[in-house]
């Protein structure tokens, strides 16, 4: 018997992240690098420990190897605990058969036994692919004060963005009376952030009912929340005003990294408040060479820069040679940018080599065909030959010479 926990968190980290294409070949989306030294999963894990939640289940099923290795025993997040801690929860075989996780609700349903072992009063359900800093304990206080069955964190978005989200219509006190998934004509601008707090008994009841419904797609947004509203449960919207970004696409992943370079964006990784933790590698300090020109950038320990870096986010073990240029780009760990190469508006994944004089991506203002402009992406372990060209928006996942085709 475990010691009872007040609150347990479950992080949905099973998504393939297919919209990140070459960046998630071989790794789960939450294990994708972010912000110079972090991985996306560091954000929800750090938020948990910073909110006093010490028991966390991470639900994985797509390419879990790197994510498992990264999370390890949870030590970097102070989640290696005598009671509780962090657990990676893949789908497993039961006496009645075995199932992959068929949806977000099904994934939690299949792990109700994990939750029950800690007998928590509340369960926090989180997404493994959002960038934000949040103290869930304040949201839990709100949930308790409202005596809610379920509290959903919401963010006010613009009318144009609203049709990409689950939209809540709520009364002045926060009580939700209507929920629409990706509406064409939004009736409200309160978007669900995919952060739910449930009172445990209510969660179990609705998960079991949903599991028995063969028509359900086993999804929180599509099935559980509408079913609870229909049954008259008390759902509350918890307003959040800080920085939050879903990094599910190439464009949003690039933007979220660039946001870190913007002093007006309210996400400060340097502040000690709600600090983000990650697994550290033992890199020496970064070395900046005699020919380097660096401005408006984020560069961690282990990088070696002797070229020009402007509006870029580099990771550990990245080398930017003399006379190379990296601009408006993100370069993942272990990648080498050789002399004379120019990287613009690109994401270069791990352990790549960008050959001398190669040209990756282009600025929107330098692109003739504006329709076809986008972030160029080089997948993991790709070697781009000397002098090769990868135009804007192209995604490369194999070694190339010459000019990459769109």
């Amino acid at each position, binding site marked *: 018997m475990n010691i009872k926990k007040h609150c347990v968190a479950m992080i949905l980290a099973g998504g393939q992240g297919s919209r990140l294409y070459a960046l998630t070949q071989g790794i789960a989306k939450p294990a994708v690098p972010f912000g110079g030294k972090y991985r996306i999963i560091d954000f929800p894990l750090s938020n948990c420990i910073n909110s006093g939640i010490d028991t966390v289940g991470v639900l994985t099923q797509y390419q879990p190897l790197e994510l498992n290795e990264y999370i390890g025993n949870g030590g970097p997040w102070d989640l290696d605990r005598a009671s509780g801690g962090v657990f990676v929860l893949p789908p497993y075989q039961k006496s009645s058969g075995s199932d992959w996780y068929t949806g977000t609700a099904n994934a939690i349903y299949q792990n109700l036994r994990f939750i029950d072992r800690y007998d928590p009063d509340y369960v926090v359900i989180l997404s493994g692919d959002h960038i934000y800093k949040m103290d869930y304990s304040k949201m839990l206080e709100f949930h308790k004060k409202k005596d809610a069955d379920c509290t959903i964190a919401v963010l006010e978005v613009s009318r144009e963005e609203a049709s990409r989200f689950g939209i809540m219509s709520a009364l002045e006190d926060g009580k939700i009376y209507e929920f629409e998934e990706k509406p064409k004509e939004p009736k409200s601008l309160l978007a669900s952030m995919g952060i739910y707090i449930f009172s445990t008994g209510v969660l179990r009841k609705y998960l079991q009912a949903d599991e028995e419904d063969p028509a359900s797609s086993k999804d929180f947004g599509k099935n559980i929340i509408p079913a609870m509203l229909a049954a008259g449960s008390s759902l509350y919207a918890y307003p959040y005003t800080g920085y939050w970004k879903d990094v599910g696409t190439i464009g949003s992943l690039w933007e979220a990294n660039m946001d870190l370079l913007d002093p007006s964006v309210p996400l400060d990784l340097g502040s000690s408040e709600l600090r983000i933790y990650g697994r550290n590698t*033992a890199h*020496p300090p970064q*070395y*900046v060479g005699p020919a380097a020109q660096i401005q408006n950038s984020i*560069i961690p*320990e282990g990088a070696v820069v002797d070229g020009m*870096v402007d509006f870029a986010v580099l990771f550990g073990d990245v080398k930017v040679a003399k006379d190379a240029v990296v601009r408006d780009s993100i370069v993942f760990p272990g990648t080498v940018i050789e002399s004379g190469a120019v990287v613009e508006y690109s994401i270069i994944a791990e352990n790549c080599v960008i050959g001398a004089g190669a040209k990756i991506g282009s600025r929107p203002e330098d692109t003739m065909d504006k329709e076809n402009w986008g972030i160029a992406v080089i997948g993991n372990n790709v070697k781009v030959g000397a002098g090769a060209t990868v135009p804007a928006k192209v995604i490369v996942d194999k070694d190339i010479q010459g000019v990459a085709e769109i």
Partner: protein
Amino acid sequence: MNNVLGIIFSNMHEQSVSELTANRCMGSIPMGGRYRLIDFPLSNLANSGVEQVGVVTKSNYQSLMDHLGSGRPWDLSRKNRGLSILPPFGNADAGMYRGRVEALAGIMGYIQHSGATEVLASDCDVMANMDYTGFVRAHRESGAEITVMYKKVDLPEGGEKECSAFRLGDDGSVQDMLINPQLPGRQNVYMNIFIANREFLERTVADCHSRGKTSFDKDVLQAGIGRHKIYSYEFDGYISRFNSMHSYYQANMALLDTGVRVALFPRQRPVYTKIRDEAPVRYGLESKVTNSLLADGCVIEGEVENSVLFRGVRVGKDAKVKNCILMQSTQVGARSNLECVISDKDVIIRDERVIVGFDTYPVYIAKGSSV
């Protein structure tokens, strides 16, 4: 290497850099942007497969204990063996020690219980990346009772402080040991690292201790020449030794050389240190940084040249930092100008200050000062 016990003396040589050791022991002197001196011998032991390390402390060891914690960054937080911090007064017979013999006598119970066959001991005054496996093998193959590590070093006219040198036989046996020799030129300089058979060490330390002898160098090594099998082992890799403020400054500056960094930080033998979870370095709009080493947590808005910046250093707008070593959380105000300055932790340089030292005589600003 399971049979080797590592011992690190964290307090030796403190008087040679007394400014830096005013509030800390030798082992916790900040070094190279993100390290403390003890990280080097401790990582060397861990990377060589030594699983049991005792760190001998004397005084001023609070920052050292904070740094080492349970030993996890060095993978020495173990159920069996692992890292132990050994302060004085560790048992009824062990008081404040005056030198290695008394220090070892005070922890003899720990050494005996380790079950090790050999004890490898190091001070914290040498920065090097060493694989000790060759050292241990050489010791075992020679059948020596104790083997000392040396490096061929060109000593300046008048010798050096805190320095011992050996005369060696053709077979590598130690024929003579000179403490603080006034010998210029190429010498076999002792690295203050030795390996000894455990039982030999127990006997010898007990013998010296009972006769009131306290110096390991004089009473064990020097006095043992001719009586015991004392051999030598040459280290031919890169080292920096600290015996003055000037050598401390130079050792940091040497890290700006790529060859030195390659020698000290090889990929397969990383140097581990306490993890602080600082954010990566942020470069501002007008930043200009060349030939410098920067640790995480720095925020740079001004100019930095030929300098080593530790974690969390801030350089304000239009400030100039040249040939400086700025330790953790130093803040340099806007339009200030620093040259050849060593600032200790938490120093605040306000706006428009000008502080200029010289490379043979850098200006030292004490911990927590405000200029």
